[in-house]
């Protein structure tokens, strides 16, 4: 029996779809028993969303009425909906706009940026913008998430393979630190450092004072960024044991050093520790409540 798969994109960057293609030649094998009934990079579908979709991968967060309608339409036809990538699963970087009350940014971008000759916000036949950036599960029921900005191609492959053979896919329940090869230091750092400072190679970045989100982030990318000498920015969202990625990171940082940490006072936006999850954080949840008044 062939499995009917669909993919769809909302407010995102297409990166998740490209990550799907990054499975490479192996993708042809996976697609053998699959009918791609609706997918933007591979086939030209000309009809409204077809019925009886087995698995739908939805990229991007919900930013406009149009996004919302499309998500609902897809949910109606699909048996298993996957929030595909950080934007869809947790709100993604787009969610940072919520720090500024979401919609205020729209006017700002069209009227306050420097080259604009005439100040005009698009309104005709373009979709109505929602007040806030939302993750997919805020508007429809989501059966599974594949986290990451974008997700890791190997992980996508393993989730799809599991689904095709009728198994339940699983994500790693560990944290990035568990797969990171860098050497932990026993001493706590004396100072918080910014990413432009040069770290010692091969030593744990957090122990050197860099804001590495490894401890609060779900494993599964093979710690790509620390391996390249860069702190993890947390794109895979909270790990299994963490409720709220940003809060968990704040907690960990505050506990790291006994005395006042110099550099901690840097003016930081609310979203600093929740770069990909702000729209689904507790803090933003409260903000939405406040603004509704």
């Amino acid at each position: 029996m062939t499995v009917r798969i669909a993919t769809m994109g909302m407010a995102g960057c297409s990166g998740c779809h490209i990550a799907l293609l990054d499975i490479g030649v192996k993708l042809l094998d996976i697609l053998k028993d699959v009918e791609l009934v609706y997918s933007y990079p591979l086939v030209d579908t000309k009809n409204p969303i077809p019925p009886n979709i087995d698995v739908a991968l939805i990229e991007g967060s919900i930013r406009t009425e149009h996004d919302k309608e499309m998500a609902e339409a897809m949910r109606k036809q699909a048996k298993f909906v996957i929030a595909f990538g950080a934007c869809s699963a947790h709100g993604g970087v787009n969610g940072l706009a919520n720090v500024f009350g979401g919609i205020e940014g729209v006017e700002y971008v069209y009227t306050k940026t420097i080259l604009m000759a005439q100040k005009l916000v698009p309104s005709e036949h373009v979709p109505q913008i929602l007040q806030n950036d939302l993750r997919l599960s805020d508007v429809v029921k989501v059966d599974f998430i594949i986290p990451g900005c974008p997700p890791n191609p190997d992980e996508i492959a393993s989730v799809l393979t599991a689904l095709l053979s009728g198994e339940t896919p699983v994500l790693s329940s560990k944290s990035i630190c568990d797969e990171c090869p860098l050497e932990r230091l026993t001493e706590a750092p004396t100072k918080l450092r910014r990413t432009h400072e040069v770290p010692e190679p091969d030593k744990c970045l957090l122990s050197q004072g860099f804001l590495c989100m490894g401890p609060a982030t779900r494993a599964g990318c093979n710690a790509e960024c620390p391996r390249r000498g860069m702190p993890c920015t947390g794109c895979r969202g909270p790990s299994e044991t963490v409720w709220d990625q940003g809060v968990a990171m704040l907690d960990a940082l505050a506990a790291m050093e006994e005395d006042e940490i110099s550099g901690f006072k840097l003016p930081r936006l609310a979203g600093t520790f929740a770069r990909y999850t702000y729209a689904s954080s507790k803090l933003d949840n409260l903000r939405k409540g406040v603004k509704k008044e």
Partner: protein
Amino acid sequence: MSKANLKVKTTPPKASSKLTQRFEPRIVSFCCHYCSYGAADLAGASKMSYPTNVEIIRVPCSGRVDPLHVLRALEEGADGVMVTGCLKEQCHFVTGNIHAEKRMQQLMADLEAIGLGGRLVFELMSAGMANKWVETTSSFYDRILELGPNPLKHMKKEVKCE
């Protein structure tokens, strides 16, 4: 996979229909077992008066208070949240209060940003400082009176856990 949704049931807050009705702030205070809880106790025993609507939650150390606890309290309709701990260098877990201070400072900035500024205080005191307890609670009570009710009171009470 995401965990099951944890639904928390609460009784809906009574609609404050009449304008004449006086606003009574609800304050949640996380008190360290070793110090501020003692201070509050002492204040009570010495018959000192402090606002009666301060609900005390005893914790083993201020360092035990997760920022999420504060956010939850606000979400559940508390008008103000106090976090109190032992004096510097007197924390029974050595650095719990220092960690707590840093967390709460960042959290205060975050709350400010989302329009809940001023609804959180962090204070240090010893078990003998009943005066400070009375002072802190009274002035916080006054501040909350001024700020008015928590705008989240009417929020849908649903706590998703993931």
